[in-house]
C-alpha cells in the first residue's frame, strides 16, 4: 500500500515540476562557446528585467549546437559564431530568414602561453621547428577552426601548421590548452583571450577575408516564440550591449 | 625398495599464543622421542594440527625449538626457521590437497620437478611409475583428482609424499574423511607401509583406534598442553 501512494506522490511531483517549467516562459538559448561569459551575464540581467522569466543556456561549438537542433532539441534561440552554420540551419528550414540578424562581431587572434619563450611573433613563426603543437578547433564543426584554416590557407601556411595541429572540440578547449601550456600557440577569439589575460598573451590579430559576424535567430516552430523574440530584442538594448562590449564583443 | 632411514629423533619444545577476536589459545608442547611411530592424540581444538604444522614449517611458533634427526628446523633463540621447502618432510593434509588441475601422474611427480613448469601429462618418470605401481594407481594415472574415490585420493597423496624420500611422514587426521570400514582397512595398510618403508611417522588424530594401532609413542594433547605420554609397542606391529 505504501509503495503505490509513494509512487503516486512522485508521479504528481514530476508532472507538477514539468508543468511549472512550461508555464513560466522558459527560453532555451543555444549559443556558441565564445559567448559563454557574456550570455551568462546577459541572461541574468534579462531575468532581472523581466521577473518570472527564465533563460536556459546551452553552450558548445556552433556545429554541435546545429546538430542538436537538427535532431530535434527543443531550442528557442540560436546564436552561432559564423554565418556558415546559420546558413546551414536556414537551408534546413530551421530558422526563418526574417528572424535572423547579426548582433555582434569578434576578431580572431593568435595566442601563446604567458610564459612562452619561443618568441612567436607572426603566423609564419608557427612553421618554425621549435613550435610543435598548435591548438586549432576542428574545422568540421567549429567556426573558429574554419576561420583559422581560412587564414592559414590564405597565407600558404595551412599544410605546415596542420601537421602540428591539436584538434579541439571548441574554442574554450583551445584556450584551456594554451593557458595550461600544453600547446605552444592557439587560435581563439579576442573575447576568449581577454578572459584569461593573465595566462595567455595575444601575439597578433589574424587578418581575415571577411569579418567575424555572429548571427542570432529564433528557431522556427519553437514553443516559446514570443519569449524567444523578446530575448533577442533585449540583446539590442543598452544594458545588454554594455555587457557584450565589456567582454570585448564589437558592434556588427 | 625400502627407504633406508635412521631411527627418528624428535626433539620438540614449542610455545605459541593464537588469538582470534576475543578468544586466546595458549599452547606449550614438548616431546622428545626416538620412536618411529608417534601419535598425537586429543580432542578437536587441542592444538594437534598446529603442532604438526609447526614441524612442517607451515606454522611458526612464538618460541622454542624443533629438531628432527639432529637437524634444527626451528630455533627461536638462534633465529633459525627453515622454510617448509627445506625441511624435507612429507605432510598429508586431511583432505589430501591434491592439485585439481593435474592428473594423478602429474600430482605424484610434482615434487620431482623444481622449476616453473609442471611435469608433463605424458611424461613418465621412473620414480613416479614405481610409486604408482606400489599403490596400484597405474590405471588411474591419467585421471584427475575429482574423478577418484576418497581412498584412491589418499593413496595418491601418499605416493606424492613418498616420492620425495622425506625424512619423516606427517599425517593430519589421515582417516577422518573415510567411512569406518575403509578406515580399518587403510589403517592396516598404512601400518604395513610404514614398516616396510621404515619411514618415521608422526600422526595426529582424535580417533583412539588410530593411536592404538599406529602409535608406538602416544602423546595425549589437551588444551595446548601434553597431558600424558605412553610408550608401547604399537599394536600394528604385532598384527604385522
Amino acid at each position, binding site marked *: 500500500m505504501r509503495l503505490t501512494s509513494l509512487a503516486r506522490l512522485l508521479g504528481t511531483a514530476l508532472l507538477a515540476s514539468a508543468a511549472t517549467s512550461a508555464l513560466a516562459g522558459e527560453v532555451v538559448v543555444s549559443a556558441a562557446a565564445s559567448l559563454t561569459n557574456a550570455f551568462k551575464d546577459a541572461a541574468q540581467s534579462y531575468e532581472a528585467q523581466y521577473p518570472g522569466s527564465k533563460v536556459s543556456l546551452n553552450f558548445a561549438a556552433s556545429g554541435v549546437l546545429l546538430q542538436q537542433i537538427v535532431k530535434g532539441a527543443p531550442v528557442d534561440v540560436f546564436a552561432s559564431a559564423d554565418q556558415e552554420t546559420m546558413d546551414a540551419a536556414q537551408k534546413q528550414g530551421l530558422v526563418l530568414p526574417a528572424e535572423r540578424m547579426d548582433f555582434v562581431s569578434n576578431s580572431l587572434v593568435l595566442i601563446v602561453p604567458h610564459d612562452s619563450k619561443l618568441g612567436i611573433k607572426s603566423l609564419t613563426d608557427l612553421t618554425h621547428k621549435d613550435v610543435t603543437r598548435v591548438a586549432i578547433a576542428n574545422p568540421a564543426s567549429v567556426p573558429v577552426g574554419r576561420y583559422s584554416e581560412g587564414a592559414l590557407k590564405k597565407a600558404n601556411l595551412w599544410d605546415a601548421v596542420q601537421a602540428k595541429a591539436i584538434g579541439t572540440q571548441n574554442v574554450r578547449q583551445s584556450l584551456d590548452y594554451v593557458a595550461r601550456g600544453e600547446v605552444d600557440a592557439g587560435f581563439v577569439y579576442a573575447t576568449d583571450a581577454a578572459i584569461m589575460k593573465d595566462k595567455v598573451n595575444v601575439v597578433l590579430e589574424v587578418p581575415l577575408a571577411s569579418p567575424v559576424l555572429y548571427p542570432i535567430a529564433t528557431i522556427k516552430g519553437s514553443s516559446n516564440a514570443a519569449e524567444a523574440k523578446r530575448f533577442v530584442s533585449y540583446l539590442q538594448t543598452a544594458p545588454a550591449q554594455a555587457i557584450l562590449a565589456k567582454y570585448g564583443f564589437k558592434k556588427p | 625398495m625400502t627407504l633406508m632411514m635412521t631411527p627418528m629423533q624428535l626433539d620438540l619444545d614449542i610455545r605459541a599464543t593464537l588469538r582470534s577476536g576475543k578468544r586466546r589459545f595458549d599452547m606449550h608442547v614438548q616431546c622428545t622421542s626416538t620412536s618411529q611411530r608417534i601419535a598425537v592424540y586429543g580432542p578437536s581444538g587441542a592444538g594437534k594440527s598446529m603442532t604438526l604444522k609447526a614441524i612442517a614449517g607451515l606454522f611458526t611458533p612464538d618460541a622454542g625449538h624443533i629438531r628432527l634427526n639432529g637437524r634444527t628446523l626451528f630455533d627461536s633463540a638462534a633465529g633459525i626457521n627453515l622454510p617448509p621447502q627445506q625441511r624435507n618432510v612429507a605432510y598429508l593434509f586431511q583432505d589430501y590437497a591434491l592439485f585439481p588441475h593435474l592428473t594423478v601422474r602429474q600430482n605424484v611427480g*610434482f615434487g620431482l620437478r623444481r622449476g616453473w613448469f609442471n611435469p608433463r601429462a605424458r611424461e613418465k618418470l621412473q620414480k613416479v611409475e614405481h610409486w604408482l605401481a606400489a599403490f596400484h594407481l597405474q590405471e588411474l594415472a591419467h585421471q584427475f583428482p575429482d574423478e577418484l574415490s576418497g581412498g584412491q585420493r589418499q593413496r595418491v597423496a601418499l605416493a606424492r609424499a613418498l616420492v620425495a624420500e622425506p625424512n619423516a611422514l606427517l599425517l593430519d587426521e589421515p582417516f577422518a574423511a573415510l567411512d569406518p570400514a575403509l578406515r580399518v582397512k587403510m589403517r592396516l595398510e598404512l601400518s604395513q607401509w610404514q614398516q616396510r618403508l621404515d619411514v618415521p611417522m608422526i600422526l595426529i588424530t582424535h580417533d583412539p583406534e588410530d593411536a592404538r594401532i599406529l602409535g608406538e609413542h602416544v602423546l595425549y594433547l589437551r588444551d595446548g598442553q601434553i597431558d600424558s605420554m605412553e610408550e608401547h609397542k604399537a599394536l600394528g606391529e604385532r598384527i604385522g
Partner: protein
Amino acid sequence: MDIAWTALALSLKVAAWATALNLLLGIGTGYLLARTRFPGRELLDALLTLPMVMPPTVLGYYLLVLLGRRGTLGIWLQDNFGINLIFTWQGAVIASTVVAFPLVFKPARAAFEAVDGQLEQAARVLGISEMAIFFRVTLPLAWRGILAGVLLGFVRALGEFGATLMVAGSIPGKTQTLSVAVYEAVQAGQDDVANTLVLITSAVCIVVLLSAGRLAPGRIAHK
C-alpha cells in the same frame, strides 16, 4: 571509409597496450591483496577501485594536470626522458589503463582468493619455490577468473572516451580513437560516418563479451 579503419586500428592498438599493462598490474596487485595481510589493505583496495566509479572526465582532468607540461610527473618525464604523454597515443594508453584497471584487478583478486591456500602449502612442503608455486599452482587455478576480468578491461579500454579526449585529444591517425571519431562525426553532422563507426565498435565489443562469458570463473579446466 578511411577514417573508420584508422580509428579502429588505433583503438585496438591502444586497448591492447592498456590491457597488457593491466594484465601485469592487475595480477600483481590482485595477488598481493589476496595473499598478504597488512593494516589498510581494504583501504588500498578501495583506492585502486576508485577509477571505476569516478567520472572519466574527472580522471582525465587529474591525468592532464599530473602528466601535462606543468605537472609533477610531466616535468619529471620531460626532464629525464624528454617525453610528453599529452596528445600522444601513449597518453591514450595511460588514460585507458587507469580507467580499466579496476575491471582487471578486482576479478584477479577474487580469483586468487578462491584458490585453496592449502594447495600452496602442499606445494611448499614438496619443496617448490614461491615463484614456481605461483606459476604452477596459483595461476593455473586462477587464470579463468583473471581472463574474464582482462576481457572486460579490454572492452572498457576500447570504448574509453572522456579521459582519452582530455589527455590525448583527437588527432586523426594518432589519437582519434573510435569513440572520439564517433563523437566528432555526430558533431559535424556526418551521420553516415557515425553509423559505420558505431556498428564496427558494437560488433567488436559483442564478440569480446561473448568470449568473456564462456570463461565464467569456477569451472576448472579439464583437457
